[in-house]
C-alpha cells in the first residue's frame, strides 16, 4: 500500500466509525431538504422552481460541516507532525485527505439526492441532470474547503472562521451549479453552458486547492 492510499483508507475508516463525520453531512442534507416543503407549503410549481437551489444550498452547508476537523484532529493528536515527516509531498497528502472527505461526505449526499428530490417535485429525467451537477460540483466545494480547513487548523473553534473564509469562495460554484441544475429541471437555458463552467471551476480548484492548503499548513505548523 502506498502512503497516499494508506492515508485515504485511514481517513475513510475514521469517518465511517463512531464520532466520524460521514453520516452527519448526509443527515443534515436530508433534514434541510425535508423541512423545506413544510416551510414553503404544498405549492408544487414553487417547489420545483426553487428545488435545485435548496438542494445545492443544503449540499454546500453539509459538505462544510465536518470539514473543520479535517486537519484540526490530526494536528491535535500529533498525527500531522508525523505526516510531515513522511516522504510523500504535502500537496498530494492534502489531495488524498480531500478525496477521502469527498468520498465519505459528498458521495452519500449525491446518492440521497434523487430520493430526496422527489419531495421537491423534481422528476426522474431532471434528477439525472441534477445529480450530475452535484457529482461534478461537490469536489470543488471540498477542495475550496480544505484551504479554509488548513488556515483554521491551529484555532480552537475554527469552524465559524472556516465558514467565513470558505463560503464567499464557493459562490461561483453555487451560481453555476444551481444554474446547471435549474436548466436540467426547468429549462429553457441549455444545460451544457453552465455545466461546462462548473466543470472548469472544479478542475481549477482541484489544482489550486491542495497547493494553497499546503502553503497554509506549512505556515501554521511553525
Amino acid at each position: 500500500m502506498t502512503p497516499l492510499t494508506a492515508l485515504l483508507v485511514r481517513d475513510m475508516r475514521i469517518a465511517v466509525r463512531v464520532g466520524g463525520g460521514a453520516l452527519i453531512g448526509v443527515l443534515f442534507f436530508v433534514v434541510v431538504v425535508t423541512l423545506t416543503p413544510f416551510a414553503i407549503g404544498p405549492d408544487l410549481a414553487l417547489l420545483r422552481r426553487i428545488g435545485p437551489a435548496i438542494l445545492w444550498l443544503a449540499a454546500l452547508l453539509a459538505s462544510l460541516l465536518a470539514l473543520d476537523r479535517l486537519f484540526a484532529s490530526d494536528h491535535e493528536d500529533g498525527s500531522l507532525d508525523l505526516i510531515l515527516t513522511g516522504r510523500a509531498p504535502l500537496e498530494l497528502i492534502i489531495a488524498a485527505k480531500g478525496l477521502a472527505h469527498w468520498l465519505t461526505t459528498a458521495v452519500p449526499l449525491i446518492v440521497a439526492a434523487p430520493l430526496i428530490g422527489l419531495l421537491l417535485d423534481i422528476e426522474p429525467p431532471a434528477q439525472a441532470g441534477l445529480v450530475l451537477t452535484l457529482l461534478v460540483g461537490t469536489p470543488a466545494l471540498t477542495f475550496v474547503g480544505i484551504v479554509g480547513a488548513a488556515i483554521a487548523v491551529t484555532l480552537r473553534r475554527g469552524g465559524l472562521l472556516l465558514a467565513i473564509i470558505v463560503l464567499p469562495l464557493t459562490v461561483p460554484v453555487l451560481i453555476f451549479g444551481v444554474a446547471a441544475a435549474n436548466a436540467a429541471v426547468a429549462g429553457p437555458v441549455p444545460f451544457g453552458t453552465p455545466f461546462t463552467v462548473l466543470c472548469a471551476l472544479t478542475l481549477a480548484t482541484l489544482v489550486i486547492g491542495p497547493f494553497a492548503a499546503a502553503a497554509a499548513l506549512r505556515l501554521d505548523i511553525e
Partner: protein
Amino acid sequence: MRVSAINLACRRGGRDVFASVSFQLAHGEALAVTGRNGAGKSSLLRIIGGFIRPASGRLWLEGGDPELSIAEQAHYLGHQDAVKPSLSVAENLHFWSAFFGADTHKVQDALELVGLGNIAALPAAYLSAGQRRRLSIARLLTVKRPIWLLDEPASTLDAAGRGRLTDFMQSHLVGGGLILAATHGALGLNDAQELSLDRPAHAPIAETQQPAEAAP
C-alpha cells in the same frame, strides 16, 4: 552518518529560547538533551525534525540518503502519541507502517515487543497513556529510520516499559542509528553524550541580576 549543528538559536513567540547550541552526533551515538522546563528541549528536537526553523545557525547531515531531508530520515516521538481512538491498536500501527512505506507484516511482532500483542484488536480509545506511548514506540520498530528524535520518551511508561525502551534504543544504536532524546531522567544508555540547554556560566544573563534591588 553524522548530524551536526553549529550555533543554533531558537526564538518562539518573540522570546529567545536558546542560542549558540552546537553538537555533533555520529551513527551509534546518543545525545541526551537536558534542561529545566522551558529551556527549549522540545524546540530543539522540533528544529531538527524540520517542524520549526531555527532563528540562526546551521544544521546538516553527512551520509545518509542525500535525496532526503533529516526529517524524512527521522522518527519523531513527541508528547502527543498520534493515536486515533476510533481505530484499533493494530490498525493504528498498520497505518503508520504503510504510510512510512514499511513492511506491514511486522506489525504484530512489534506489538508483541512493546507488550500490546494481546490487545491488538482493541479500539485505541481504551488505551491508557502508557499504552498509547507503547503503541507509538512500536512505530519506531516497524519502520526503519536511522535518526530517532525522542521527546520525553519515558514520561508515561512504567518501569517495565522503560526497561524495554532502553533495550530498543540500545539495539538501535548497535544497528548504527542515532538518538537525540530530550529527557529529565536518565536515559539508561551506557555512553550517551549530554547537551544541557540551561544557560552556561560563560553566558551570564540571569546571574548578574542585582541582588540588592530595592524590594517593595
